[in-house]
């Protein structure tokens, strides 16, 4: 199963003249994070040392070396969101979801809280993206309601934006 997926990525890479970044992007979208075994597999097949992959993976913000939560909550930390209180939203999220200091994912792998530089939706700041749905003009109250629905498993995934 995993082998199949990796072969698929390799074929795409060869067909589209991709590069190491596109391989990592494909692994990330396939498995949700950069699995060590996947990187080792590519390292062997392409005869590129794993360090080369990790050098790239740790350079770009998009890549993750640890598994991420089932629900991904992205807080925008752009300037407009910052002056409109994004920090407070993040604090309340981390507390509500019981995320350990220095971590971004809850221990039960249900939630990941991540910060991004700017999603470019500044006119509706502060912005929180919950499982790819952009929520503008967020308040701690609205956010907690959203989390509650997620915890109860009511909200379905929307795969847009």
């Amino acid at each position, binding site marked *: 199963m995993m082998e199949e997926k990796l072969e698929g990525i390799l074929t795409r890479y060869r067909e589209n003249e991709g*590069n190491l970044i596109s391989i990592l*992007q494909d692994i990330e979208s396939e498995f949700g994070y950069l699995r060590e075994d996947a990187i080792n597999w590519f390292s062997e097949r392409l005869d590129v040392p794993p360090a080369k992959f990790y050098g790239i993976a740790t350079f770009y913000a998009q890549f993750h070396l640890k598994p991420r939560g089932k629900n991904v909550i992205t807080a925008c930390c752009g300037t407009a969101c910052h002056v409109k209180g994004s920090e*407070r939203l993040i604090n309340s999220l981390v507390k*509500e979801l019981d995320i350990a200091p220095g971590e971004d994912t809850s221990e039960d792998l249900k939630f990941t809280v991540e910060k991004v530089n700017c999603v470019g939706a500044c006119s509706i*700041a502060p912005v929180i993206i919950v499982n790819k749905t952009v929520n503008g003009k967020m308040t701690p109250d609205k956010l907690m309601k959203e989390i509650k629905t997620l915890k109860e498993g009511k909200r379905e995934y929307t795969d847009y934006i």
Partner: protein
Amino acid sequence: MNKDVSIKVCMGTGGIAAGGEAVKASFEKAFAAAGIKATVDRHCSVHKVGCRGFCARDVLVDVIINGDKSTYQYIKPDMVERIVNEHIVGGAPISDWQVKDDYHTFHNKQIKVVLSDCGEVDPEDINSYISRGGYEATKKVLTTMAPQEVIEIIKTSGLRGRGGAGFPTGVKWDMAIKAPGPVKYLICNADEGDPGAFMDRSVVEGNPHAVIEGMIIGAYAIGAPYGYVYIRAEYPLAVERLRLAIKQAKERGFLGKNILGKVFDFNIKVKLGAGAFVCGEETALIASIEGKRGQPRAKPPFPVQKGLWGKPTIINNVETLANVPYIIRKGAAWYADMGTEKSKGTKVFALTGKIQNSGLIEVPMGIPLREVIYDIGGGIEGGRKLKAVQTGGPSGGCIPSSIVDTTLDYESLGKVGSIMGSGGMVVLDETDCMVNVAKYFLQFTQTESCGKCVPCRVGTKRLLEVLTRITEGRGREDDIELLETLSTDVKTSSLCGLGQSAPNPVLSTIKYYRDEYEAHIFEKRCPAGVCKDLLSYSILEEFCKGCTACARVCPAGAIVGEKKKPHKIIQDICIKCGACFETCKFKAIKKG
């Protein structure tokens, strides 16, 4: 009677977040339902259009009946039925829901070139762009002009790079055409990394064909058979629309081999950025397309001599390229007529922060900042006072309210210690702390520093440390001087633009708000009431009604008390987030 009805629903990121998709679906449903009953023959179409700028009023909907346009604001799906029944079927517009005068003021002072088709064309349909004159410039250039002629037009128009540095585009292209070899690359930089900026996203989402057309013309001018768009992965909608547009352009023969029957091949590939601010820098961007860590290198050689895969490469910003087709269509003189002596044309800004009408605007170069803030922006939110306008993001600076008459062009902004940058414009009011703003930007640049050169890697870290201790009440007597010296060192000795400009927010806030730095350092006080460690919150018992609103919003559980009795904040638990302060309707929370 035949009526030609067309509905345009704003579906930029702002529009979609406000429910644009649902509004569009409601219209389609209502039309289907009404179509069965209606006896008159109607032609109804519902389009999605890109950002029209006024995102604060989303969802914006245009109802056009026989060319007569009415615009509605704040539209929700449940309002659609009434619009269809009363306006489209009944012929009586619902004036309460229509946009008011301020909507027109917002647009009147603007001159739209790059944004002229955004919000009008359907970004997912090439025919829509063609029907408004799209790809005519391509035909004109390919069939009647020599590459050098194209370059002359762009030179005469005075177009300068809209990514921030303002290098004349025509001159850049001229250097590329002179570079030897048949293999050259044209890269469109859509890695819009500045926080608080979304011009490029909106242009790509709203009118992707203008960018593609600009690239085709640019590629023809410099003789580049290959093009790349390097775009942020954080902009999924823009990526999707761009890919679709490239596919459509290929099908129509505007991209590919022997374009329009001429001996000219050009193809565009989309490369997704992986989230690194430094990749906006030309040499870092090239390294990233090559699949490496996006670290800049020393220049020269410049990309135009030795760029992608070692070949001559031109990198232009989205907005720069999107200007090109309009300049070709309407002429260099028309473009050069707008703006100031050295800064020609228009500039798109993302007007955000504490402003009444936040959104995307396009104004002629040289417009006074005052007109942007008060006439277009409608003044400051909540009737508060303007404190400063931050332009140019983490590489820029602040323009204090005292010089709000500064004009917006490359030269004037440079003179007051800020930069044009890519067009982010964040408005700050009296409740914003300037030391905190400087710290915010340093946090950003410090994290985004690629680490290759020491002045930037270590310098930004030390700057941030000093700023952090000032905001935490541990500032030292000579910290301001230290910041100034260190800033100058980082500026002069860093390898690339990131480090060279990173200290700008610090220097410009010290220049205009030295007193605020001094208050933090010597009086351990944050005049704007932002820096948490210099603040405390308490409840004024005489005003507290015991409504429990504050206790419910407190994320730390620091507020205790019984219902209908005065509450109390436990200082040890309080994280000073200010949630209670903003929630309390009785002004019972004291900050200070």
